């Protein structure tokens, strides 16, 4: 008849299964496999545009993949289930081991085995004539203790011996490693909710105040309280770029981007600062990163009656390495109709044989702005948020470029041209009108896009990472081993010294270590002992207290 397990029995059985090494290994390998799809399919977290593109390219497959959270693999239910089970298994394994280890840390090295010859690295030495057994073992005890072993003396069946163990740090490191992994998971899982990440584009000369409304986009953690934002101001004074101009193999490759900024903490004096690609600026509890840059042509639209209805530096998004850039101008009010313009900006414009324009160098050598004009409904009046970087032309009529037969508006810095249908004029302002006519290097303002982050857990993650590395190093490289030295008096009156070791875990150097202990021990014994008659009595008296039948542990 089968014994019934009952609920508790089943739970116990499941828990034992979950915390077994075999299950842990299975979950580890499953985790590795589960992480793969996230590298094959674009992820919303790291590549949102890629996901949009994937939906456009694979309209049938994408929704199916989306149903199984393939675009959010690392926050998906199935990926989370695997790593949470793995960590439960880990904790279930590590806690009993910690208990064991605490006991082992206070335990005495076990009694010397009766037959050392069966153990690893067994070797014997003959003590110098006249060496007393107790004295020899006392000397071995001192030697082992000074080598970092915990020692205990045993006197059994006529032979005295020392039992020694070292390398408790191995298990300590092992446990520290696993607990630090749990620490990272907890800190990332819960602590991450207290930070935020925001983006802001600044054109040269613009200032940003660190408040919620000033961000172009803002992603707070679950528990983030935006009243904790420190309202410092950040001004982009200038954005310096340097492109390779001499190395023919790398013409136009960026060499340096530096955002010169001024930071004014609340109630304090302004301080100059610098943000570079690998050099964030850390201020006001936030870290400011330079993630992108481009041109922001200054454009003015004037109505037929001569009043400026639009005048701004408009960030154009770079489309290629030579900074061919795409931007949108929206003029909702002041003209006869709502006007939208889709513009291309070429910092160094050239014409392909097909007649199409392109940019041949990312710096401002021969800048050109082209605009296609649309009229109609900009879609701004419904209160639906729209992107400043795109124009919805569904309800608009194209007036220039394309199939309209009207030439696209082409402007050099400082030029003004008429808009079609007598709508008014558009000017591409030269930001540096005083420069020589052929020097256009400062004619167009630049913008920098900053990522501003606050993550209170970073230091914790780093600390746990350091613990992981330290735990690994000690857990894998500190050898845990036992060594025994036994003095066995021989029938011919000599004293035979036996040495042996036992590896507890990986220990490739055990045999060498036992041999080294034997050699060093023999060298420590006096080679010309006192005359035997006197030494025996004196030695016995001197050593006796040091050789108790059961010794107390000695921590080293």
């Amino acid at each position, binding site marked *: 008849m089968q014994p019934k397990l009952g609920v508790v029995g089943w739970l116990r059985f499941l828990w034992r299964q979950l915390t077994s*090494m*075999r299950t*842990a*290994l299975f979950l*580890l*390998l499953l*985790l*590795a496999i589960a*992480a*793969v799809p*996230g*590298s094959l399919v*674009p*992820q919303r*977290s*790291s*590549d949102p545009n890629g996901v949009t593109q994937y939906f456009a390219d694979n309209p049938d497959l994408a929704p199916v993949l989306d149903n199984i959270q393939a675009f959010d*693999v*690392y926050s998906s239910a199935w990926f989370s289930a695997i790593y949470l089970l793995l960590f439960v298994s880990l904790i279930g394994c590590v806690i009993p081991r910690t208990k064991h280890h605490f006991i082992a840390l206070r335990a005495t090295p076990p009694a010397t085995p009766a037959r050392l*010859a*069966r153990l*690893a*690295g*067994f*070797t014997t030495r003959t003590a110098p004539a006249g060496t007393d057994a107790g004295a020899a073992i006392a000397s071995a005890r001192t030697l082992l203790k000074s080598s970092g072993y915990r020692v205990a003396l045993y006197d059994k069946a006529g032979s005295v011996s020392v039992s020694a163990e070292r390398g408790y740090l191995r298990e300590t490191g092992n446990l520290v490693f696993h607990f630090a992994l749990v620490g990272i998971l907890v800190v*990332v899982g819960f602590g991450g909710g207290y930070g935020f*990440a925001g983006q802001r584009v600044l054109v040269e000369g613009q200032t940003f105040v660190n408040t919620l409304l000033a961000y172009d986009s803002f992603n707070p953690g679950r528990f983030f309280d935006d009243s904790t934002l420190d309202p410092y101001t950040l001004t982009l004074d200038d954005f310096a770029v340097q492109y*390779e101009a001499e*190395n023919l*193999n*790398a013409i136009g*490759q*960026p*060499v*340096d*981007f530096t955002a010169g900024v001024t930071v004014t903490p609340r109630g304090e004096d302004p301080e100059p600062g610098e943000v*570079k*690609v*690998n*050099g*964030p600026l850390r201020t006001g509890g936030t870290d400011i*990163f330079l*993630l992108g840059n481009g041109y922001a042509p200054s454009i003015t639209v004037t109505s037929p009656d001569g009043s400026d209805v639009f005048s701004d530096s408009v960030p154009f998004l770079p489309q290629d*390495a030579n900074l061919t850039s795409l931007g949108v101008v929206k003029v909702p009010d002041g003209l006869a109709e709502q006007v939208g313009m889709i513009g291309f900006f070429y910092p160094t414009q050239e014409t392909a044989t097909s007649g199409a324009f392109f940019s041949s160098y990312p710096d401002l050598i021969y800048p050109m702005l082209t605009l296609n004009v649309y009229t109609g409904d900009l879609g701004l009046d419904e209160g639906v948020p729209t992107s400043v970087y795109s124009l919805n032309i569904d309800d608009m009529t194209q007036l220039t470029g394309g199939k309209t037969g009207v030439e696209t508006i082409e402007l050099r810095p400082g030029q003004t041209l008429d808009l079609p249908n007598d709508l008014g004029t558009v000017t591409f302002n030269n930001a540096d009108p005083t420069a020589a006519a052929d020097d256009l290097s400062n004619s167009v303002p630049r913008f920098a896009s900053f*990522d501003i*982050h606050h*993550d209170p857990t*970073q230091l914790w*993650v780093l600390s746990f*990472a350091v613990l*992981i*590395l330290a735990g*690994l190093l000690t857990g*894998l490289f500190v050898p845990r081993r036992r060594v025994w030295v036994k003095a066995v008096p021989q029938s011919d009156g000599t004293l035979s010294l036996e040495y042996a070791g036992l590896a507890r875990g990986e220990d*490739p*150097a055990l*045999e*060498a270590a036992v*041999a*080294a202990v034997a050699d060093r021990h023999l060298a420590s014994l006096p080679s010309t002992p006192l005359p035997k008659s006197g030494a025996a009595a004196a030695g016995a008296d001197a050593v006796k207290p040091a050789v108790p039948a059961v010794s107390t542990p000695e921590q080293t």
Partner: protein
Amino acid sequence: MNLNDLSIMSLYSAMAVYALAFIAFAIDLAKRSAAVDAAAVQTADTHGQGAASVAASASSSAGGSGASTLTMNRLSARINNDATTPYSHSASLRVGMSLTVLAWALHLFATVTRGIVADRVPWANMYEFAMTGTLLIVAVYLVVLIRVDLRFLGTFVTGLVLVLLGVAAVSFYVEVAPLPPALQSAWLVIHVFVASLGTGFFALGFALSFVQLLQFRRESLLADTRPVRLRFLATLPSAATLENLAYRVNIIGFILWTFTLMAGSVWAEQAWGRYWGWDTKEVWTFIIWVIYAGYIHARATRGWRGSRSAWLSLIGFAAVLFNFGIVNVFFKGLHAYSGL
């Protein structure tokens, strides 16, 4: 000839010498097989027994090695004892080793001059990663050789390095270009170098695990007194010894890989504003870390020690190569390199 041409010339020369070394090592493997045959004939003559006695002596020596009085502390001695058929010297082995050292010197010269021409560390694009990475694979091999006799892996090491260098020189070559702002960081020096060094250890671990699997198969066949191919395996350490060696090499690689992952996170925080973002390269670095973590745990899991854990070592290194060769080139992500 300018310094850049000299670097390229030197790299091609190194490849030629590696090729010669590969041939010499291959001849050595053939000679090992011949030596095993000769030993078998001798055994048959003196004892009238065949391969079964070789198997018996293999198992007895493996079981009894712990009990013998050991004063030697060099691993190499132990490993030579561990082989069924003792074999230490052959002219082709010595030639192979000398050629490897010579090729490595040329390889080192090519890498250093590339760094001088570029005026920075020579590991900032695919061509340079391949050059430095393979240099470190051979360097790790040569350094480990000082302690352990792994000359039987010569064909693997020179062959692997030759293939990787060939691909790099043909497909990945780029002219020297200035570092883009994203790579202008001290972490480029540390993170990429440690990753390449870790790869060197994983490569060696892969080779040892591979031979371990061959050896295990041979030992199983011998135990069933069935015929064995790849007779040179008799001159190589036992599967158990190979497994221990592979483990030791792989845990060093694992620690270096852990450091790579952490250094990469610190750098990612500085450059991209977050220490971890599941970028494709981060994903694969993580996958590799988990595979090797699995490998280490497999050693302590009942039923997984031996051949199963060896398979994990092979899969791990395959993932390393995939991470370098496929993810860098074909996957979209932040670890994209201009012009490779």
